[in-house]
């Protein structure tokens, strides 16, 4: 049990020494082997690697000298499974089971890194660099992710070693709730869940509501498909969220918290359960924390796969055990939220910044970022980009820096077409806006939004009409059905988009599409419906020529919309072998042996069997 600051500091000192091997690269006579245990690397087999690693270490009789640490996500998911060896900080990527014996014997036992298994960017002749030297890491600045990939999230002492639970001590013993709120206001922290509402202001409203029962909630629903920042924070540093929720509880006068997590995140749920249990056992969560009389409890609630439950009022309805339908606002949750009591809801990443702001001061945080968006933002980089993974950069970094420098650009020599931010509520950003500094206001200005941080890169092979249709398919699916504008409006949008992708659209449809978009935006009940038309509006704004190509020329320039494609046999390449004609299931190809074959478009199903079988690459679909 930790009841005093002396006890907390004693744990801190002891474990700080343990983590100094990896944090400060101090050689204390043994090695730390860090293996990523996040979802990405676990999916690519890291759990099995740990087992093999343990066996090999035993075989070599060096158990005493090696400390295996299962961490959260390092960020570079594309290179997983990832393994780091400290104090050197060498970086093995895409580690395979068969490589482990050699790594253990050569590196862990005899101190000679196995160069050919290291991440190639860190090897320069005889010099071996670390993760920090890669272009992926250089421009990053880690605040919310500071402990991810550094500590073992299942050991509370490692969090304590990294100043864990110092912030709640400081708050409870030397600050008033108003001080806490003022610090957050001064820091300029805005909500990372999408809206960008000032966190201090939200807490101020909730504090002002008079009620003996209030609640603190954490939104870990992470509904944007293609985003995984919040998951990584929970998997890599769960205590940071727990401690911040305690601080929020102190600030607004609440003693009960709920974390609402997506059920699709089993590892995050498990780590949270462990973290809550450990914090309770240490007395850092529960009754009378640090003997100050302040009590705070946290319950976990699992979502059940409904996107709308990320919306604040729907999330609360869901925790109450109902269909997760949103409620009209006002009353705002700060007045009447969960179980009709004053409630604050913040996003995981928002909480992950709070303890650092308390410890380092508002000025420190306000020193990063742009005028109206302070601090850093975590993005989940995905899609057509080399370094898919997690990146945290100061607000105001340009998209170009994120995509080209950190992300390593587009693979396979393809051309960048658009970056999608804000998920189903956001928009597509075209090449001409790549140099816009990323912050809340700029992204809205160019027709997208920050969202929670999903950043999907698309190249010339992606059809923007198809992408708009993809997002509408999502919202049609996820609309809760409570309001007509969203329930029926999104369905009509989807139908018009389908018509266009099938080559049956008209120019008039484009106008109808736009008109309907504005109608839905104005009339939908909650944020889901109000933002659902954004993917359509932004693609119409920046990629109108692609829409025109579909409706006027009946052509899909990216070659995605199947109905608009035709299969052609290139006469200059066709040898007349007749294979395609024999493979075609509907006898749509005919010709004479030895001379070029032709496709009968009235029969062709565009199944692609002919293309797959042609030995001369003579068949194309465009």
């Amino acid at each position, binding site marked *: 049990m930790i009841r005093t600051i002396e006890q907390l500091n004693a744990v801190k000192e002891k474990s700080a020494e343990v983590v100094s091997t990896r944090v400060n690269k101090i050689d204390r006579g043994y090695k730390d082997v860090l293996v990523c245990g996040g979802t990405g690397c676990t999916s690519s087999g890291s759990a099995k690697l740990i087992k093999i690693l343990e066996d090999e270490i035993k075989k070599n009789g060096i158990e005493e000298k090696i400390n295996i640490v299962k961490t959260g996500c390092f960020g570079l998911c594309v290179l997983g499974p990832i393994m780091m060896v400290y104090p050197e900080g060498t970086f093995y990527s895409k580690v395979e089971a068969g490589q482990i014996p050699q790594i253990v014997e050569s590196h862990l036992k005899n101190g000679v890194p196995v160069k050919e298994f290291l991440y190639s960017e860190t090897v320069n002749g005889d010099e071996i660099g670390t993760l920090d030297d890669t272009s992926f890491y250089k421009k990053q600045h880690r605040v919310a992710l500071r402990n991810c990939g550094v500590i073992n999230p299942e050991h509370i002492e490692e969090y304590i070693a990294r100043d864990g639970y110092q912030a709640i001590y400081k708050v409870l013993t030397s600050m008033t709730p108003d001080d806490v709120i003022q610090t957050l206001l001064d820091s300029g922290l805005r909500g990372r869940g999408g809206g960008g509402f000032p966190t201090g202001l939200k807490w101020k409203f909730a504090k002002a509501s008079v009620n003996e029962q209030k609640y603190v909630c954490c939104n870990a629903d992470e509904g944007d*498909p*293609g985003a995984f920042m919040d998951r990584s924070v929970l998997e890599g540093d769960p205590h940071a969220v727990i401690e911040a929720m305690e601080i929020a509880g102190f600030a607004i006068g609440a003693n009960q918290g709920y974390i609402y997590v997506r059920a699709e*995140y089993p590892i995050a749920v498990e780590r949270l359960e462990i973290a809550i249990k450990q914090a309770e056992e240490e007395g850092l969560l529960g009754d009378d924390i640090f003997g100050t009389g302040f009590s705070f409890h946290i319950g976990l609630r699992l979502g*059940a796969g409904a996107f709308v439950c990320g919306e604040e009022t729907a999330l609360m309805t869901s925790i109450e055990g109902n269909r997760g339908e949103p409620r009209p606002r006002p009353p705002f949750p700060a007045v009447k939220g969960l179980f009709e009591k004053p409630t604050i809801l913040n996003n995981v990443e928002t909480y992950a910044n709070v303890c650092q702001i308390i410890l380092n001061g508002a000025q420190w945080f306000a020193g990063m970022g742009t005028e109206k968006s302070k601090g850093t933002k975590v993005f989940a980089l995905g899609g057509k980009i080399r370094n898919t993974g997690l990146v945290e950069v100061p607000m105001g970094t340009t998209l170009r820096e994120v995509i080209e420098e950190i992300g390593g650009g587009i693979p396979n020599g393809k051309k960048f077409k658009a970056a999608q931010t804000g998920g189903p509520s956001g928009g597509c950003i075209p090449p001409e806006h790549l140099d816009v500094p990323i912050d809340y206001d700029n992204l809205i200005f160019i027709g997208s939004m920050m969202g929670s941080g999903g950043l999907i890169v698309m190249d010339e092979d992606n059809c923007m009409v198809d*992408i708009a249709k993809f997002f509408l398919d999502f919202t049609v699916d996820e609309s809760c059905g409570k309001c007509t504008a969203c329930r029926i409006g999104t369905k009509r949008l989807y139908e018009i988009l389908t018509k266009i992708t099938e080559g049956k659209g008209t120019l008039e449809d484009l106008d109808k599409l736009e008109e309907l978009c504005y109608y839905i935006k104005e009339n939908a009940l909650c944020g889901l419906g109000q933002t659902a038309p954004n993917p359509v509006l932004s693609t119409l704004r920046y990629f109108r020529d692609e829409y025109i190509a579909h409706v006027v020329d009946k052509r899909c320039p990216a070659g995605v919309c199947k109905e608009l494609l035709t299969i052609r046999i290139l006469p200059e390449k066709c040898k007349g072998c007749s294979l395609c004609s024999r493979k075609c299931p509907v006898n749509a190809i005919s010709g004479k042996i030895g001379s070029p074959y032709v496709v009968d478009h009235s029969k062709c199903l565009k199944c692609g069997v002919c293309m797959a079988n042609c030995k001369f690459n003579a068949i194309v679909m465009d």
Partner: protein
Amino acid sequence: MVLEKSSVPFFGTAEQKKRLMAVISEHKDEKGALMPILQKAQDIYGYLPIEVQQIIADEMDIPLEKVYGVVTFYAQFSTHPKGRYRISVCLGTACYVKGSGDIFNRLVERLGINGGEITPDGKFSLDACRCIGACGLAPVMTINDDVYGRLTVDDVDRILDKYN
């Protein structure tokens, strides 16, 4: 109300019922207990047939309509049984732009069933999901607890053969 009844007859064991009752009495008095109870009930039975919903409604003393309303609202709750091998293809944005739609279509073709359905022999069920958080490995699908990443359409056949 028209209840969606599964075409497969319900066989619950006494053991399952005992576990369900234990879960209900453990959570019954919590605020907002219905969701956690349904989640655990689905763990026990694999799905939530109307018979199980009825037990929960009776024991919690709430109308069946309320239980049914919640069950049908959330994508994770299923009123139909799942296959022995539950295939789930990620149609999240990161996976979609990297071609997971083609993976899904290939599975539809191979298994002869649509999303949300189960093969007649009860072996495979197919679903689409939205992002399991492994976007770095896109496109991704899962079969029970195994995750398959960086897929191509050709991989699908190879992987399915493993389960035959």
